[in-house]
């Protein structure tokens, strides 16, 4: 996916302070204040987790913190709703498998 840089109503995307997060070990440059889901989408990542039983991929569905489809493991904590959780410098984000605990 790509950033919407120029926009007829919203204007040109203003510069934001850069925040580095690590998604499955890969460094991603996010915009300060944006949720994890936006940062990973801008980096082209659509799969946030795999389901417990069938291992099916899931991504962003509601985008406003209600459906929990977009959860990932953040700083070791599973089931974090990435669509309403802002990025923070040095955050470690991982694709979640099942419930995200050791006994997956």
């Amino acid at each position, binding site marked *: *996916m*790509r*950033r*919407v*840089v120029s*926009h*007829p*109503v*919203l204007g040109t*995307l203003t510069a934001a302070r850069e925040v580095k997060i690590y998604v499955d070990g890969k460094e991603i440059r996010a915009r*300060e*204040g*944006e*949720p994890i*889901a*936006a940062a990973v*989408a*801008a980096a082209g990542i*659509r*799969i*946030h987790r795999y389901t417990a039983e069938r291992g*099916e*991929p*899931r*991504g*962003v*569905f*509601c*985008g*406003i*913190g*209600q*459906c929990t*489809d977009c959860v990932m493991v*953040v*700083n*070791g*904590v599973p089931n*974090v709703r990435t*669509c*309403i*959780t*802002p*990025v*923070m*410098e*040095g*955050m470690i984000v991982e694709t979640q498998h099942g419930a995200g605990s050791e006994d997956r």
Partner: protein
Amino acid sequence: MRKVDLAIVGAGPAGLAAAIEGAKRGCSTLVLDMNPLPGGQLVKQIHKFFGSQEHRAGTRGIEIAAQLLHQAETEEVEVMLGAEVYAIHDRTLEVAWAFTGDSSASSSGGGATPPSRHLAIAARRIILATGGAENALNFPGWTLPGVMGAGAAQTMSNVWRVLPGERILMVGAGNVGLIVSYQLLQAGAEVVAVIEAAPRIGGYGVHAAKIRRAGVPILTSHTVVRAEGRTQVEKAVIARVDSSWQPVPGSERELDVDTICIAVGLRPNARLASLAGCCLHYSPRLGGWVPIHNSRMETTIPGIYVAGDLSGVEEASTALEEGRLAGICAASSLGKSNPGDDERIAAIEERLISLRSGPFCQPRQDAKQELIEIGEVQCCKE
């Protein structure tokens, strides 16, 4: 325990409007919202609103959000973000912060571990303005990444400035489907088609006309049969439906899309109201289960009020008016009123009737009336 006169859950148009009215009448007012930004869904509404000129029609939703926030600030309303209310009992709200961007909320002061804290808030009056949630639609492949709510795509594009996809199929030609299609075009995506299972377009003709002249087909009596793709959407298969909503064999068509947006209506987000013990009523016209409330927006739990999409899915304009009404009434029940409040309430009610008139909105007016009539019987009398 933190104590306030008025606690409001949800910083959207209804919640902020309620907060402003409460604070104007001298209530100590706190607004809690789980999102990182205040404004509710106004923050992604980049189109100019309908409604009456006297009430900011023709203004874009994002500007209305900014105006409300400014007013809330002037009235010294406190807004707490990232704050999730997970229980309400005896007019006490249990609030949890999970992650926030605010390092002051963090015990460790950084991103190494998730900051987390809890707070109990005792409120003399509570207004729930938790908004709505998008309905899902089940079809084979609907769980693939790339299938998302139209509102999610709108949030990604307009708030976070990330295009949710390049080639989009919009499912549903109500106002949300039509408006989000237009806004995705504006953000630079291609909308391959808008499909609608009903034989007629549900949204306003002017919204449909905008995207039609931009070259987007609107296919009525069509449904999505399945989404295909290994790890994400690579293709959509659509088909015509007959008068009993069944796909017509042989009418299937493949569309080369990477994203399928679902815009098949919203429902009131009544989970917290239900947890708080408010009695609900099922009203299809209002989007599903809604908390019963009286003409003062008070629910069956004394001291708990509702406003906005939670009390029936409508528009931002009606949410603002209901929020004002709830704010004035909640303050009044605490003995805090301003001169002229009776006239103000009458004017709000008049505007609500006007906003709910016309062939589009009259059914909602009828449903609201029915809900309030139930509320007048079931909700406590002063």
